[in-house]
């Protein structure tokens, strides 16, 4: 085979029988004439027998395998169920890893840096299926900072409290802390909208008599009176209509998250907020976000 002049050997097969090489009268590499049907082109030295060559057509046909592979991969990517990790299982051994959680939004809060420029949206999440109850291990905070927070708001991707969300985020976990950080707004999706955002009208008496009926729900108190102020963020309110025995304290509830300097004792307020049980203090409170326009309305 290696000797280009030895035409006789080249045209024998292994049994010694003559073999047809199907050599064309022109070089298949450079196109110049090959009138003597030589195994090598006299001009470019390329091998001319088809068996020494790979046809472009066969190469083209082999791409069918790639098209099939592409279809299979697309099918897998569409059908693959996401690998959700339970919030309770997120620990420091998984620090910096990208994780995906299916969770229920417990609270949403937003705050800005000290220059009032860069905002951070923080969601407290619990496992969507089993919830967290009073178990802190079953909860985690998801942070969206700066651009991501802005995009979440501008694109209307921000979930509401009680919504079930699918979030892919980076875990930052160490001794005593666990946080998820959202890389882009699109990696947070609302899977199921909640109806927990409906506001329920209530008064303080009914809240305190049957607190479980209102637990973790958004409530609206049409009229309440400020009975005292506690620190910078807390005021205590009571029903305005309830007659109280002189000298005794009226049934009251704490309103948390307000700028107490803005209110005076005896002032009547309309309050919109979340009714929650403050576990450390062991009492019920209404959490409000004063950035919401109707969070607190002064009535007198």
């Amino acid at each position, binding site marked *: 085979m290696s000797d280009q002049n030895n035409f006789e050997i080249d045209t024998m097969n292994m049994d010694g029988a003559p073999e047809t090489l199907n050599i064309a009268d022109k070089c*298949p590499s450079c196109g110049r004439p090959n009138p003597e049907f030589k195994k090598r082109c006299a001009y470019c030295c390329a091998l001319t027998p088809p068996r020494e060559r790979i046809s472009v057509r066969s*190469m083209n046909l082999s791409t069918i395998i790639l098209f099939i592979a*592409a279809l299979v991969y697309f099918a897998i990517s569409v059908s693959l169920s996401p690998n959700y990790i339970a919030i309770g299982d997120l620990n420091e051994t998984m620090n910096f890893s990208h994780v995906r959680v299916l969770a229920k939004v417990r609270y949403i809060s937003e705050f800005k840096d000290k220059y009032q420029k860069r905002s951070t949206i923080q969601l407290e999440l619990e496992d969507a299926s089993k919830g967290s109850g009073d178990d802190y291990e079953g909860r985690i905070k998801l942070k969206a900072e700066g651009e991501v927070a802005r995009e979440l708001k501008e694109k209307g991707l921000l979930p509401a409290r009680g919504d079930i969300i699918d979030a*892919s985020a980076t875990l930052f976990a160490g001794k005593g802390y666990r946080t998820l950080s959202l890389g882009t707004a699109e990696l947070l999706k609302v899977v199921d909208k909640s109806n927990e955002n409906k506001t329920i009208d209530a008064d303080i008496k009914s809240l305190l008599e049957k607190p479980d009926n209102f637990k973790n729900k958004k409530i609206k108190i049409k009229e309440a009176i400020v009975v005292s102020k506690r620190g910078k963020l807390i005021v205590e309110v009571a029903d305005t209509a309830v007659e109280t025995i002189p000298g005794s304290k009226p049934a009251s509830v704490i309103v948390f998250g307000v700028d107490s300097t803005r209110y005076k004792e005896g002032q009547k307020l309309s309050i919109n907020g979340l009714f929650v049980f403050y576990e450390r203090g062991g009492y019920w409170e209404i959490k409000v976000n004063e950035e919401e326009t109707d969070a607190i309305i002064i009535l007198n």
Partner: protein
Amino acid sequence: MEISIVIYSIIASLIGVFIAMLASIIPGLHIYNVIALTMLLAFTAADLFSGLHPIVLTGFMLGMVVGFSMLFTVSSQYFQPNDESFRSIMLPHERFLLEGRGHEAVMLGALGSLVAIFIITLLFPLIPSFFALARNIVQPHGYWMVALVMFFILMTEWPKDHGVGKTGWQRFWDGWVQLLMGYFTFIVAGILGMFVFYRTIVPVENAFQSLMPLFVGLFAIPSQIMTFMTKVKVPKQYICDSVESAPHDVMRGSASGFLAGLYAALVPGMTPGPALLCTGHLTVTSGERQFLIGGGVGRVIYYVGALMLFFMPGVFMRRGGAAINISLFFVPETPEQFFLISGIIALTGAVSFLLIGWFSRLCAYLVEKIDYNWFSAIGCAMLIVLTIQITHWQGMVLLTVATALGLVPNMWHSRRLNLLAVLMVPVSLNMSGAGPAVARFFGFY
């Protein structure tokens, strides 16, 4: 994953291939230059691009990378010929062109590219743990692995036009001048690389493209200038239906290309060229066909394979310009994203391969009808405009210096491979921890 995202990503990737094909017609234009321009547009028109899901934009970029890695050598094949005065440094594809076998050279490279796409899409997803292991093994040893390749490059520089002088001293000088210029190029390129790594003059907002003026200046512009200097009539090209290649050519070329691509993909600072030089020796490749096939395999494994490792669960390795650019707006996270990326690579790889034959015919036709210098002139102008646009006048200063250095190998017929010291020297020194000390020695730090 939502089917709409998959469909949008497929469409975006095919658009990417189309743009890559258009860009490929200009010789010397590199895909990373096009990606840099896309990124610049993305930052400028943030509102327009913010409407796209990051994975759709990733699909678009991936389409460009796959398309370009398979197509961009076609125009260089036809529009950058060398004449006989460069015979000693002429590469096989240039010789094929002068024999009227430009299309065959293209298809041999394409065969290598096809093999690489098969390896990437059918083998890579099965062995993610191998890459995680390989990365962990290579990471602490990268600096000396790059240093070894540098030594190998320097050791294998050889005198090419020796013995033409009339006196003994002239012949002695002829023998040594190429070696000396090769070493000179290597040292100066290394110092230039250190300067850019430690004290780049490119404005900070575009500093992620600091290396662009260097690569354009060292490689692209000198190639165009060389083309202007070349006075050669490109013969009529024959469009062949088959390529001369025995199974052992494909096997050996693919083996050397695969190892080279993998080496370049795993070791920072490496590119397929020097890696192919080493692996070619390792796999005892011989002949022009194996070289062309190996080049095709190595190129695609490096550009596309390295990018795939960026999306591979458990690996997430950010290597190469495309991965760095994509990481600015997308963080790969889930297996379904990886499978989508694998599918896009298989699809765009197949489409790009089918386009190569037609694209080669188009280029063969154009080189017959239009003076190839026009393509070089357009390429040159585009590269300069792109450099100014992306890196401002400061980049232009770097480009001028780099071009002067890039012309040295052309003038003295030393190897252009030495110019890669611009990347290998700083990366190797930095990985070894000696980078800051060396930079301080030169007053860069």
